[in-house]
C-alpha cells in the first residue's frame, strides 16, 4: 500500500482497539469509527485464547498446532499459531492497570460467577490468585446490593471441583454487609466507584476481620475500582493478609471497562483518533479498493478517505453481521458475503448448548485477512477483517474470543503495515 494516508478501523471492540493501537504505534495515522462501545464492556477481561477443543486445554501453545490443523477455516488457522502467541504477548505489554500475568504455555483455571473454573491464558493480576491449581480453600465474598454475583452459588460449585492434580477444593461463602450509601441495588459500577475510596476499602477489610481462616484465598466480585484497581487490590491483600482475586460479574464488566480504558488511552497516546457514535453508513470503492467511508452521526454524514480499512464490527451480538426477518444475512458495512449461514440447513439445533450451525457463520478471509468470496477470490485488496466478524469459530464455546480478536486485530494491522497483498 503505497498511499501513506489515514487507515480507518471500524469498531471499538477488542479487535478494533488492537488494530488501531498497533497501526498507530507503527507510525500510521489510524482512526477508529464506531457505532458504540464494543464487547469489552461485557468481557470478563481475561484473555481467553483456547479453553476447550472441546476437551479442556491445559496449554494453548501446546494445543494450537493440532487445533488449527483440525480447523482449517478457523481464524487461528488463517493467522497461524505463532501470530497468536506474538499478539497476546504484545498486548500484555500494553495492559498496565492492572498488569496482566500468564502466557500461552499454560491456562489459568479461574472461577466464574457461576463457580465454574474457566480456562484463560492471560489474566489481570487481580484475578490470578483464583487459579484452581492453588486448591483454595476459597472464601467467596458477597456484597448486598450486588445482584450480579451470588457467593453461595460460586462457593457451592467450587466445592464440587477438584484441582487438575485431583485434590478436593474447599469453598464457602461470606457475606459482608457493606453497600454504597446503603443502596440495595448498587450494581458493579456503583461498587467499583466506592472501592476507589481508601476509606471504603478499609471498611471492607474491617468487616472481614476475624472471619477468615489463615489459609483461605479470598474471592471477591470484580468491582475493586475502575481506576487504580491494581493499587486497591494490593492494599486490600495487605489489609486482609491473604491472597485476593476478582471474579467477573454480569455486565457492565468493571474489568472489561478497565481494559477498554487502558487500550483506548494507549491508542490515543500513540496518535490514533477515535470517534464513537459514528456508524459507518456507506463506502466509496474503486474497483478492488475502498477509497473511503461515510459515517452517519447526529451531526450529519461525513466522508473519511482511507488508504486501507480494518473491519472489526463484531459478530451477530454486535451488529457486525445481521439477519432480517426473511432470514437474509448481511454484513452491513461492505456487503461482504456471509459464509456458513445457508438457508438449506437448520441454522439452530434443539438444544441450547448444541453446536448451532449459524454460530460459525461469518466473513471468509485469506491469510492476510482480506475478505474473499466463495471461490477464495479476494474482494477488496485494502480491506482486512478482524475479530468476531470472521467465520469459522465458536468463540464462546472454545473460550477463544479474546484470543481471536487480539490475534486477528494485530495481524490485520501487521498485514496493512507490511503491505502484503
Amino acid at each position: 500500500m503505497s498511499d501513506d494516508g489515514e487507515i480507518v478501523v471500524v469498531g471499538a471492540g477488542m479487535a478494533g482497539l488492537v488494530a488501531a493501537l498497533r497501526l498507530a504505534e507503527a507510525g500510521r495515522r489510524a482512526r477508529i469509527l464506531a457505532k458504540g462501545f464494543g464487547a469489552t464492556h461485557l468481557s470478563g477481561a481475561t484473555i481467553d485464547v483456547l479453553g476447550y477443543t472441546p476437551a479442556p486445554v491445559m496449554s494453548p501453545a501446546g494445543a494450537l498446532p493440532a487445533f488449527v490443523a483440525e480447523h482449517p477455516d478457523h481464524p487461528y488457522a488463517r493467522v497461524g499459531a505463532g501470530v497468536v502467541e506474538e499478539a497476546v504477548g504484545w498486548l500484555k505489554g500494553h495492559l498496565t492497570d492492572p498488569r496482566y500475568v500468564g502466557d500461552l504455555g499454560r491456562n489459568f483455571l479461574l472461577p466464574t460467577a457461576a463457580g465454574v473454573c474457566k480456562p484463560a491464558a492471560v489474566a489481570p493480576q487481580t484475578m490470578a490468585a483464583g487459579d484452581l491449581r492453588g486448591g483454595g480453600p476459597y472464601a467467596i465474598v458477597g456484597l448486598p446490593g450486588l445482584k450480579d454475583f451470588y457467593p453461595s452459588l460460586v462457593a457451592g460449585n467450587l466445592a464440587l471441583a477438584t484441582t487438575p492434580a485431583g485434590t478436593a477444593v474447599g469453598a464457602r461463602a461470606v457475606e459482608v454487609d457493606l453497600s454504597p450509601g446503603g443502596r440495595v441495588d448498587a450494581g458493579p459500577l456503583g461498587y467499583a466507584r466506592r472501592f476507589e475510596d481508601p476509606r471504603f476499602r478499609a471498611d471492607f477489610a474491617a468487616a472481614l476481620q476475624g472471619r477468615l481462616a489463615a489459609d483461605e484465598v479470598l474471592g471477591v466480585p470484580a468491582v475493586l475500582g475502575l481506576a487504580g484497581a491494581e493499587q486497591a487490590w494490593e492494599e486490600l491483600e495487605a489489609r486482609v493478609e491473604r491472597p485476593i482475586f476478582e471474579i467477573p460479574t454480569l455486565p457492565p464488566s468493571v474489568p472489561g471497562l478497565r481494559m477498554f480504558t487502558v487500550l483506548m488511552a494507549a491508542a490515543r497516546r500513540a496518535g490514533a483518533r477515535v470517534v464513537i457514535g459514528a456508524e459507518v453508513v456507506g463506502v466509496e470503492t474503486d474497483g478492488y479498493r475502498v477509497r473511503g467511508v461515510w459515517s452517519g452521526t447526529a451531526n450529519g454524514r461525513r466522508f473519511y478517505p482511507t488508504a486501507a480499512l480494518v473491519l472489526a464490527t463484531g459478530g451477530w451480538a454486535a451488529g457486525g453481521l445481521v439477519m432480517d426477518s426473511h432470514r437474509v444475512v448481511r454484513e452491513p458495512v461492505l456487503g461482504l458475503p456471509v459464509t456458513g449461514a445457508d438457508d438449506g440447513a437448520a441454522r439452530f439445533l434443539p438444544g441450547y448448548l448444541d453446536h448451532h450451525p449459524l454460530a460459525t457463520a461469518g466473513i471468509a478471509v485469506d491469510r492476510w485477512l482480506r475478505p474473499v468470496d466463495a471461490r477464495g477470490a479476494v474482494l477488496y485488496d485494502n480491506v482486512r477483517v478482524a475479530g468476531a466478524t470472521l467465520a469459522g469459530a465458536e468463540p464462546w464455546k472454545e473460550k477463544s474470543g479474546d484470543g481471536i480478536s487480539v490475534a486477528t486485530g494485530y495481524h490485520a494491522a501487521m498485514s496493512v503495515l507490511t503491505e502484503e497483498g
Partner: protein
Amino acid sequence: MQTIETEVLVIGGGATGVGVARDAALRGFATVLVERKDLAEGTTGRYHGLLHSGGRYAVKDPQAARECAAENGVLRRIAADCIEDTGGLFVTTPWDDVEFGDRFLAGCAATGVGVEEIEVGAALVREPALNPDIRRAFLVADASMDAWKLAWACARSAVEHGARVLTYHRVTEVLRNGDAVAGVVTVDVRTGVTLTVRAQVTVNATGAWAGQLAALAGCRPVDVVPGKGIMIAMNHRIVNTVLNRCTMPSDGDIIVPIRTVSVVGTTDSPVTDPDQLEVTQAEVDHMLDEGEKLVPGFRKARALRVWAGARPLFGAKEPGDEKTRDITRAHTLLDHRQRDGLDGFVTITGGKATTFRLMAEETMDLVARMASPGTDRPCRTATLPLPDSEPGAYYAVGSRLAQRERHLLDDQLVCECELVSRRDLTEALDRRPTANIDDIRRALRLGMGPCQGGFCTYRATGILHHQERLDQATANRALLDFLQERWKGLAPILYGDQLRQARLDDWLYQGLLDVEHLPAAAGAP
C-alpha cells in the same frame, strides 16, 4: 401408599380445571385438583391472551359468540385484576371483503355482541400503527387477559374454600369400581411418591388431553383433536387495542396487546399429540406476513418468542381429515354414565379461556346432581370476585412500573425487562417453594421480556439457591433447564435484534459464566 378421599376430583389444572375446582369448592364440595405439571402450563398458558367480545365468532359460530359476550361481562366483574381493558377493533384490510362488515354487524346484533362501527380516521387516531388502507372499523369489548394470574386466582379461591390443589401430580391410573370411576392414582413427578385420590365424581378437565385420560378410564374413545396454534410475542406494545381482521376467522388475523408485548396469532392445524407441538419456519413467516397486513412494518419489529398451544377441539374424526378450524368453539360436556354406562365420570372439553367459568358452571351443575341429588347447591362463581379483584379495577399496563417506583430505593430489580423485584421473587418463593425457574416465570413473568432471561436467569438461580437452600446440582439444573426452556421459544424466531440478543446471552452464559461446564451439565439428559 397414601390415600385421600374427596367428593369431587378434578383432573387438569388449566383454566377449566381450576374453574371447576373453584366452582365445586364454592358449592361446598370437598374438592381435590390434580395437575401433571404446573397450573396453566398447557393450553391456558399458551394462548394469545384474548378475552373475547364474541365478535370473532359472530358470523361463524353464533353459539360461541353468545357465550363469549355473556362471559366477557362476567369476567370483567369477577376477574378485573387479570384483565386489561384494551377494547378491540375489527378492521377491513385491503385483503378483506368490505361486505363482510355488514354480516359482522348483523351477527353481533343477533348474538348480543356489543359493536359500534367507527370512522376509519377515528380507528387510526386510536391506533396509529394500524394499516392506513383499512376501509371499515368496528369497536368491540375485546380485552387482554393474563391466563396465569387468572388460573392462580381461581386456585387460591378454591383453596380458601377448602379445596386441595396438587400440582406436578400425574395420573398413572384411573381407579374403577365396577361400572364406576372411583378416583385415580397419581405420582408426584418431583418426588416419585404415589398418592391415591378416591372420589365420588371425577371430572376430566384435561382439555386437549381428554382423549388420553378417557382411554385410561376405559370408556369409549373421546374424540378430541388437538388443534395446534402458534403465537409470536413482539417486543413492545405495537398496538394498545386488540386488532382483528373483519373476515371469517383465519390464520394470523389477530394481534393482542398484553402486558409488555403484542402477540400475533394464530394458526390451526390438527396434530396427534398435544405434547409435541413443533413450530415451523413457514408458520412463523406466515404470522409475520399476516401481521404486516394489519400493521405495516410488522416484520421490522422485534420478535421475542414463539410458542404453540393445543386447542381441545371435540368431534373431528381423525387428524388430517379436515381443517380443525371448522369445528365449533363451543364446549362439550360428556356424562359418561349416559354415554358409556360409566358412573362417577364427567368430561368437559372444547371451549376457550373466555368461557372457562361457564364451562365450570355447567360441569358442576351436572356433578352436583350426581354427587348430592336432591340438594340445591347453586353456582356462585358468576358474582363472587376472585381474590385481589374488584369489579371495574382493571389491570393497567403501567401498574407494575407504578409499584416499582414506590420501592426503587428499598428493593432490588432482578428482571429489568418485566420489572420483577427481589421481594416479588422471594415472596413468590415463600408462597410456593420451587426449584424450577419456569414456575417463577409463570407467576411473575420473570424472563419473558426482550432479553429472554439474559440477566435474570443467573440472578434467579442465585436467589433460589440461597433462599431454598437447594443442593448444588439442583441449582445448576434449574439454571440449565431455564436456558433450555427459553431457547425452545427463541430458536424459530431468531432474526434481527432477537438474534443479536441471543448471541449476547451466549456470551454471558457460555463465554463469561461457562455454564456448559457446571457440575450438573455433564450428566444432563
